[in-house]
C-alpha cells in the first residue's frame, strides 16, 4: 500500500499550522486592538472560511491562483504555478485553518486584563517586549488551543484541497482525498485504514494539546489557593531554594 498520503498530509498540516500560527496571532493581535470603522467587516472576512462550504473556498482560491487570477498571473510571469502542486494543499489547508487560530487567539488576547498591559507600558518596556513577555504568555492557553484546532482542521481539509491541488498520488493526495477516492473505488478496507489513521492522529494531537494547555492555564492563573500552586510554580520554587535567587 502506498503510504505517501500520510507524509503529504502531515507535511501539509504542519506547514499550514506553522504559517497559521504566526499569521493568525498577528491578525488576532491587530484586531484585538483595532477600533476602526471597518472592524466588523474585516472580522467577518477573516472568519468567512469557517462558515463557507470548502468548495466555495476552493473556488475563490482557483480564481486567485488560476491561470487568469491576479496571483496566478504573477506566478506565471515568474515561470511557476501552484495549482495542482503540493503548495496548493498548504494554501487550502492554511485558508480553512486560519479562522480557528485567529478566533481563539483573539478571544485569548481580549481576555487579558488591560491594566496588566498598561502597567508594563508605564514601566518603560517596549511594545515588542510586552507582546512576547506578557501578552503571548498570558494568552498561551488560547493560542495553544487555537493551534490544535488549526492543525486538526488543516489535517482534515478536503474540499478546497481537491479543487486546487487535485488528487495526484505521491504529490497532492492527502489522507482525506485518499479516503474519498478509495471509498468511491470500492476499496473499503483501504479507506477504513486511512480513516482509523486520521482519527488517531487528530485525537492524539487534541489530547496532548489539551493536557498541555491545562497545565499552562493553571500556570497563568497561578493554580488557585494551593500553597505551592502549580506543578511549574512548585518546580520554580523548589529550584529557587536550591540555587539561591535567580532571576
Amino acid at each position, binding site marked *: 500500500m502506498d503510504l505517501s498520503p500520510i507524509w503529504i498530509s502531515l507535511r501539509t498540516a504542519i506547514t499550514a499550522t506553522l504559517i497559521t500560527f504566526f499569521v493568525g496571532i498577528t491578525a488576532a493581535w491587530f484586531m484585538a486592538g483595532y477600533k476602526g470603522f471597518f472592524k466588523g467587516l474585516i472580522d467577518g472576512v477573516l472568519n468567512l472560511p469557517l462558515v463557507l462550504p470548502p468548495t466555495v473556498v476552493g473556488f475563490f482560491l482557483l480564481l486567485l491562483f488560476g491561470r487568469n487570477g491576479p496571483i496566478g498571473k504573477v506566478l506565471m510571469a515568474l515561470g511557476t504555478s501552484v495549482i495542482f502542486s503540493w503548495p496548493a494543499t498548504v494554501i487550502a489547508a492554511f485558508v480553512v485553518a486560519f479562522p480557528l487560530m485567529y478566533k481563539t487567539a483573539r478571544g485569548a488576547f481580549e481576555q487579558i486584563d488591560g491594566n*496588566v498591559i498598561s502597567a508594563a*507600558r508605564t514601566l*518603560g518596556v517596549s511594545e515588542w*517586549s510586552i507582546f512576547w513577555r506578557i501578552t503571548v504568555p498570558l494568552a498561551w492557553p488560547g493560542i495553544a488551543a487555537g493551534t490544535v484546532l488549526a492543525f486538526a482542521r488543516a489535517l482534515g481539509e478536503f474540499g478546497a484541497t481537491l479543487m486546487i491541488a487535485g488528487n495526484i498520488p505521491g504529490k497532492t493526495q492527502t489522507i482525506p482525498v485518499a479516503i474519498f477516492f478509495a471509498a468511491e473505488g470500492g476499496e473499503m478496507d483501504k479507506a477504513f485504514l486511512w480513516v482509523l489513521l486520521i482519527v488517531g492522529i487528530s485525537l492524539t494531537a487534541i489530547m496532548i494539546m489539551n493536557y498541555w494547555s491545562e497545565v499552562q492555564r493553571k500556570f*497563568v492563573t497561578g493554580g488557585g489557593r494551593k500553597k505551592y*500552586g502549580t506543578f511549574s510554580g512548585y518546580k520554580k520554587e523548589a529550584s529557587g531554594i536550591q540555587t539561591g535567587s535567580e532571576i
Partner: protein
Amino acid sequence: MELLVDIRKKLPGFKLEARFETESGILGLLGASGSGKSMTLRCIAGLETPDEGRIVLNGRVLFDSGQGINLCSRNRKVGFLFQNYALFPHMTVEENIGFALKALTKQEIRQKVRDQIRTLHLEGLEYRYPSQLSGGQQQRVALARALAVNPEILLLDEPFSALDNYLRGQVERQLVEVLSGYHGAVVFVSHNMEEVYRVCSIVVILSEGKVAASGGKEQIFEKPPTLSAARLTGCKNIFSAKAVTPKCIKIEDWGCILHSDEPVSPNVSHVGIRAHHIGLAEDPGEINTFPCQVIDAREGPNTVTAYLKINDLGKSDHGYHLQWEISKEKWSEVALQSQPLLIRIKPENLIFMN
C-alpha cells in the same frame, strides 16, 4: 519635583477639565465615582490622551496639544499603582519586580530587586506567584515593581479599594511609611475622604470633571468653598441660603436666620453644617440656638446619627431638618433629656459656599 496638569477631554456624559499643580508631597484627588479622577491619572501616565491641554512633570513636557507633544507611557517615567495591582500573573514576585530592569547587568538587577524586596518587607515571598499572595502583599509587590524603575512621580489609583476593612488600615500605614521615603511627587486618587485626609497633604476635589476645590487639606476640609466640595468632604447638612446682613444669613426653605461671627460674602448661595458640629445649648439666649425634636436615631458602631426636626419651621423634604452625629456616650445622656432639645450651632462652624 513638580507636576502641572491642565487638560480637557470629552467623556461620555461630561467634560473633564482638570487643572492643578503640585510640588513634592502627596496630592489627593478626591471625587465621587465617575468624576474623572481615574481618567485624569491615566492621562498623566499616558494611558489615555486628553483632547487638549498640557501636562508638565519636573520641567519635562509630557503632553502639549498646542505643540503636538505626546510622550508615550514608556518614556514618561511614571509609576502607576492600579486598583487591582495588575501584577504579571505568570511571574514570581522577584520576576515582577525585576521585569523592567533590563538595561542593567544581572548582578545589578538582582541587587535592585533585593533592595526593593527589603524596603517593602517582601522577604520570603520572592518565589511566590501573585495568586499566592494576600491583597496587601500584592499591593507591596506592585509598589516595589513601580518604584524599581525610579519614577519621577507615583500615581496611585484607589489603592485600598480592593482590600477588606481589616487590612485597609494596616496597608494604609505601610503605604504612607514607604511613601515617606520616596522623593518624587505622589498623586493619590480616592473616593474616600477620610483616606485622603489621612494620607495626603494637598487635596484637589473633582466633581463631574471639574476642580471644585483645591488647597491644603485642613483648609479644604474645614471650609470647603463650593457645594460639591462640601458634599465630598462629608458635610451632611447643606441648605441654600442668602446673606441678609453682612453677618446674618437666611436659610431660604425654612425662613430661619443663622448668625456668623465673620462677614459673609454677599454671593453666598449655600450654608453647610457638619453633623458633628451640632451641640447642646447651655443657655437659650445664645445665638444660633434652636428647639427641636428627635424624630429618628440610627446607631452606628461608634456614633449615633440623630435626625432632628426644628420646631416652628417649614416642612423639609426629608421629614427632618438636620442630621446630628454624636458619640454613643453623649447620646445616652441626650436620650434621657425631655424634648424639645435645645441645640446650638457655633457660628465659627458654619461653612459658606458661593
